[in-house]
């Protein structure tokens, strides 16, 4: 990245800051946050304490005052571009006149537009579900997509697909919004001018004809990871036509360590599949295997099943995590040890040495004891333990993990190896480097970029932009560049041709899942615009430029079917049956890879002496963002507004540092006050000079992060992402070089405070719960001793106290809907939040509004840190524990559907009323927006449409909406309804048969998306239902049960399974 760009970046952040910092705005404190005060507070408290923010922990009275106000009081202006008085009067006069005119008439006629020929199998008004798959890195998530009269509206997991098992993740849930993204590229362009597809095909054919002579020696293809057998087959056949052409791959957020580690350990690229359900003890080496990476959804599901506690006889697995920055996996772990990313390798070496695999490494004293215990525990559980290395760790760590797993006898039980899922595994960094070198050497004439955004994502020392752009003399190194992508992005604007890529819901295709299973990608809708698939763009260069995706995929499937179950004389129609079954099920039966026998050709002793990490230097590590990933989801409003699992930041990334590092660097963040808003946090802006480049970022303090480590999340700072994604956060790629792809080192002087501040939107500053006991946690030991521990913190009032006429008014004689959320299973992954947003037409409000505490998510996930249970001593390290490595818990909070609902008592217009089945019904058309209900809600789960947040004009977004749920307007309160549309649907279907609604017939959107089965919904009157059984457990407790609200949603206390040896320390 050149100097020009850096300056832009810098100015941009500063510029926005000024804009958001008008006179009269203020902060809670003048100086940086007082960590000494935090420490003192920690010291003075004993017993179990939970806290959410550093300010809360410090107990600043101003901060507490701030939290007492739920809604902005006297906010000076609701709009960024405020209108002056004269304009306001003009507008009001005009709109009054118009409203007066339009209010008099009848509503205009509406029209019914039936089909001309109705498709077979479609019943108007009933949704249909189709199986398909979303390719994502070296995995594909099997999906069932809901379609209303041809419009895909909601993504669900496919229970038959191994990568989903019925659950989904945030990316899959939000991908439907990408389909309807109004900023998508809509047609073929050449130098930015609209062209026809046939013109592109002609040009591609001309290029191909020109390349025939030298065998394509000057032709290059650049793609991301390809797991699609069809696409790979097409590329391979193109490479047969042009034997001298080359296929390069670049996937920016997936490390080469996984691939190269297998090569180091086994001599060839292999794929590792874990079976966490069989492991009693798991060690994650900087691995977020429960939250990201191939197979994380089934891994989370199977892992959480081993944390099910139905009674005192149940056992739990144990998870250790070593990681530089808190991840979903680390937050779930029973023991977590913050370690700089570069030290994880040392840890792995030391562990291998401890297990007698050779080598010798000494660790710091604290880690040594931890290591001892882990090693002992692993050894005790030979064959039922598992060591998982992280995607961003180098090859050595992966090789060590393979060696340790082999030594522990885990291969074949808790993990197995298969042939690679990737169609063509290569070292991506080398592959991209080779391409850049070839371009530099003038060896490339035609470059076809299939997906991805290399100008934005390539290491900045490669200067990919200069490789394909015109230079000062109006020359360029590659004669023809073609980019196929869904958006016209940073790469597209430098390429000659841009082909708008179809969404996966618009094309035929196929993709392999993490275990090799092939899923057929089935389109739900014809392309909305003049877009084409990667396959079609590739085919334009082949001998069959017009071949349809369907034909290619089907032919490939036929060949695969032949391979899977060879028949000498296939009976007629047998393929048709196979094909239809594959489409219906979403998976090609029997296509999963068989376990391979892999011989270890590696000894930890053979590793060269580790390169000592530069002493006294800061470590800068790059991680994909949990919401926008590598930047590909930057224009997705649902994901931008989704609070990140651990930091709870929205709309921005931030350079994350530990509290101690922050103290050393004198970096802080301060909560802003302005009209009672909360969620706006002013953070110090820092310049980071790294690898001959510079980036300006806002700093964010993360308890539990390793000291002297700065995390730079990728995926932000996009210059051309679209309306939602452009110019959000900072671009970490700007300081990422090929030599330091995942971790870079620099002295702490590389970080320089600019003296400016930048407002960040953090949702963990909203809705604080006054320090009451709302989260119940314990250890397995405590649980076994006293299974009722969760209910002993508060005195519960007698049940007969009620403002209603009790049983007479609401007997709940038939169905009594209820929900149980198992905090033991929840890992905070956020899938439920996006699923709810998608199902219930919840709007996106934007950063400004989130900073005012007005985000609309019906279900929020609170993140709590637990104060160390240790009694304070004079030893500073003991009280630092809480900041250094606090146990982390997540608590999803939707509407609690109280039986004694405080909201219902205060509504002056009867807009929120009790239903006969115990729901707190919300009647939007009655609501006049007094917000009394929200003020009276102790759980703060009601959301108010302060402005018209919903986009009513953009035609594409109209297609997205769930027709079963009202689209709310301004001035209306809304909240979780237990997906009442799904309840009504199931009730109607069962009533037609006069049958009871069986358990599991109603699945709420959050429950359906949850990978860990933490959310269970059902009928509490049915004693055999899952929810009734969970509620009968002693772990079950009501949130603020002492208020006698009698919530229908209850929680099961989180139980951790710590190793007693480490506990007694």
């Amino acid at each position, binding site marked *: 990245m050149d100097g020009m760009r850096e300056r832009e970046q810098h100015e941009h952040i500063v510029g926005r800051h000024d804009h958001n910092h008008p006179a009269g705005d203020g902060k809670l404190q003048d100086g940086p946050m007082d960590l000494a005060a935090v420490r003192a507070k920690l010291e003075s408290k004993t017993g179990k304490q939970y806290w959410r923010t550093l300010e809360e922990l410090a107990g600043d009275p101003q901060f507490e005052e701030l939290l007492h106000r739920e809604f902005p009081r006297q906010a000076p202006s609701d709009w960024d571009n405020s209108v002056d008085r004269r304009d306001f009067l003009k507008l009001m006069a005009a709109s009054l006149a118009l409203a007066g005119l339009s209010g008099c008439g009848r509503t205009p006629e509406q029209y019914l537009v039936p089909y001309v*020929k*109705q498709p077979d199998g479609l019943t108007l008004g009933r949704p249909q579900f189709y199986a398909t798959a979303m390719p994502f890195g070296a995995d594909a998530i099997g999906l069932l997509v809901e379609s209303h009269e041809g419009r895909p509206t909601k993504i669900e997991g496919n229970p038959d697909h191994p990568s989903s098992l019925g659950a989904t993740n945030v990316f899959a849930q939000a991908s439907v919004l990408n389909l309807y993204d109004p900023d998508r590229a809509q047609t073929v362009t050449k130098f930015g001018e609209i062209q026809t597809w046939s013109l592109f095909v002609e040009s591609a054919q001309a290029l191909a004809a020109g390349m025939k002579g030298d065998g394509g020696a000057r032709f290059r293809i650049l793609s991301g990871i390809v797991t699609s057998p069809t696409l790979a087959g097409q590329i391979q056949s193109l490479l047969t036509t042009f034997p001298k052409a080359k296929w390069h791959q670049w996937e920016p957020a997936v490390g080469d360590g996984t691939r190269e580690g297998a090569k180091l350990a086994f001599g060839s690229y292999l794929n590792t599949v874990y079976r966490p359900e069989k492991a009693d003890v798991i060690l994650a080496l900087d691995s977020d295997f429960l939250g990201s990476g191939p197979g994380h959804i089934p891994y989370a599901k199977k892992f959480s099943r081993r944390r099910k506690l139905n009674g005192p006889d149940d056992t739990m697995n144990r998870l250790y995590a070593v990681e530089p920055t808190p991840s979903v996996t680390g937050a779930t772990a029973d023991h977590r040890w913050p370690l700089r990313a570069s030290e994880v390798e040392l840890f792995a070496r030391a562990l291998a040495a401890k297990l007698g695999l050779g080598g010798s490494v000494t660790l710091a004293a604290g880690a040594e004891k931890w290591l001892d215990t882990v090693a002992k525990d692993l050894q005790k559980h030979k064959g039922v333990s598992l060591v998982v290395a992280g995607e961003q760790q180098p090859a050595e760590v992966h090789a060590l993990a393979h060696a340790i797993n082999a030594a522990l006898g885990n291969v074949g039980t808790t993990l197995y190896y298969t042939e690679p899922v990737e169609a063509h595994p290569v070292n991506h960094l080398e592959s991209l480097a080779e391409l850049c070198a070839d371009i530099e050497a003038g060896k490339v004439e035609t470059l076809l970029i299939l997906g991805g955004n290399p100008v934005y994502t390539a290491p900045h020392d490669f200067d990919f932009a200069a490789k394909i752009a015109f230079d000062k003399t109006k020359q360029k190194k590659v004669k023809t560049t073609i980019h196929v992508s869904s958006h016209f992005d940073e790469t597209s604007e430098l390429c000659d041709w841009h082909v708008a890529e179809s969404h996966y819901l618009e094309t035929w295709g196929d993709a392999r899942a993490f275990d090799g299973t092939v899923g057929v990608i089935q389109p739900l809708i014809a392309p909305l615009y003049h877009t084409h698939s990667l396959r079609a763009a590739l085919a334009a260069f082949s001998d069959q430029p017009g071949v349809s995706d369907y034909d290619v995929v089907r032919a490939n499937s036929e060949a695969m079917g032949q391979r899977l179950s060879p028949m000498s004389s296939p009976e007629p129609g047998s393929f048709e049956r196979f094909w239809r079954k594959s489409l219906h099920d979403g998976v090609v039966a029997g296509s999963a890879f068989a376990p391979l026998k892999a011989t270890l050709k590696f000894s930890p002793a053979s590793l060269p002496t580790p390169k000592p990490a530069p002493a006294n230097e800061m470590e800068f590590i790059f991680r994909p963002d949990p919401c926008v990933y590598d930047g590909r989801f930057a224009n997705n409003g649902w994901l931008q507004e989704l609070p990140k699992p651990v930091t709870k930041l929205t709309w921005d990334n931030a350079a994350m540092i530990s509290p101690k590092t922050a103290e050393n660097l004198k970096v802080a963040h301060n909560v802003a006050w302005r009209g009672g808003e909360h969620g706006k946090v002013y953070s110090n802006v820092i310049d980071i000079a790294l690898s001959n480049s510079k980036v300006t970022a806002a700093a964010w303090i993360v308890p539990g992060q390793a000291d002297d480590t700065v995390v730079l999340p990728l995926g932000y700072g996009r210059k051309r992402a679209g309306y939602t994604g452009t110019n959000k956060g900072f671009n970490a790629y700007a300081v990422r070089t090929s030599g330091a792809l995942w971790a870079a080192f620099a002295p702490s002087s590389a970080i320089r405070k600019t003296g400016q501040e930048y407002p960040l939107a953090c949702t963990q500053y909203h809705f604080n719960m006054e320090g009451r006991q709302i989260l119940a946690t314990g250890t397995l030991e405590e649980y076994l001793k006293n299974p009722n521990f969760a209910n002993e913190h508060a005195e519960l009032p007698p049940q007969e106290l009620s403002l209603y006429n009790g049983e007479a008014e609401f007997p709940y*004689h038939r169905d009594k809907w209820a929900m149980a959320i198992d905090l033991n299973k929840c890992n905070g992954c956020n899938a439920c939040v996006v699923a709810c947003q998608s199902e219930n037409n919840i709007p996106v409000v934007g950063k400004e509004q989130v900073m005012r505490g007005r985000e609309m998510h019906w279900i929020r996930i609170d993140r709590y840190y637990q104060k160390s249970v240790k009694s304070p001593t004079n030893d500073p390290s003991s009280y630092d524990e809480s900041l250094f490595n606090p146990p982390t818990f997540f608590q999803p909070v939707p509407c609690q559907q109280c039986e004694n609902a405080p909201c219902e008592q205060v509504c002056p217009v009867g807009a929120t*009323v009790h*239903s006969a089945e115990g729901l707190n*019904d919300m009647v939007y058309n009655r609501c006049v927006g007094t917000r009394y209900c929200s003020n009276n809600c102790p759980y703060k789960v009601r959301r108010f449409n302060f402005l018209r947040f919903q986009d009513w004009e953009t035609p594409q977004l109209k297609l997205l909406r769930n027709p079963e749920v009202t689209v709310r307007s301004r001035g209306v309160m809304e909240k979780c309804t237990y997906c009442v549309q799904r309840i009504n649907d199931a009730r109607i279907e069962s009533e*037609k048969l006069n049958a009871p609604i069986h358990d599991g017939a109603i699945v709420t959107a959050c429950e359906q998306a949850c990978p860990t089965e933490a959310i269970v919904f059902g009928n509490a009157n049915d004693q055999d239902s899952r929810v009734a059984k969970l509620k009968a457990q002693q772990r079950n407790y009501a949130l603020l049960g002492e208020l006698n609200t009698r919530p229908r949603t209850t929680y099961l206390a989180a139980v951790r399974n710590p190793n007693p040896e480490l506990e007694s320390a």
Partner: protein
Amino acid sequence: MAQIFHRSTNFIARFSVYSALFLVGVALIAVLAVARSPYMTRQNISREQPLQFSHKHHVGDDGIDCRYCHTGVETSAVAGIPPTKTCMNCHAVLFNNAAYLEPIRESYRSDKSIQWVKVHRLADFVYFNHSIHVNKGVGCSSCHGQVNQMPLVFQANTLLMQWCLDCHRNPEQVLRPKDQIFNMDWRAPDNQEEVGAKLREEYQLRTTAELTSCSTCHR
């Protein structure tokens, strides 16, 4: 001091106060009456359609069952407006040269939908489901009136919330035997209260409290 106002002004003052109150009352009643009038509800107003399709002819004279065209009525929330193809099932051979039916043929040829004017319009925040009503003994004519006698369909009832609730509070008044659901000429027997109560039990209707919960219709 002399009186400023003559005694008669007392009357004028009283008269203006009372008449002001009266006028406010009248205005209020007028507003409510207008909102409930056929002008706003469009009750009993026939609409001109792109093709003057006669239910009287097709149902009353030809005896075609409702479900031949409205296929979703027993299974889906919406009864469904038939595709042009359904018209062409017959009119490909019957009256296939009639100029009157040209819009149908044109639609079929050009694959462009016919845009029918919507007659029965519920508010957007109401989620009505045809199938549960039909399956629980509410006949078509209970809401739609005698469609078999309507040359052009009009809305036979107000479709106001009050009208819905009348029935949800007291469904016995309209319940009929299952074989009479699609009978347009069904008349409530004299002992409807008695029969209705029996049918309510037979159909296992939910309690009035459940039928009138807000989320039954609003979500």
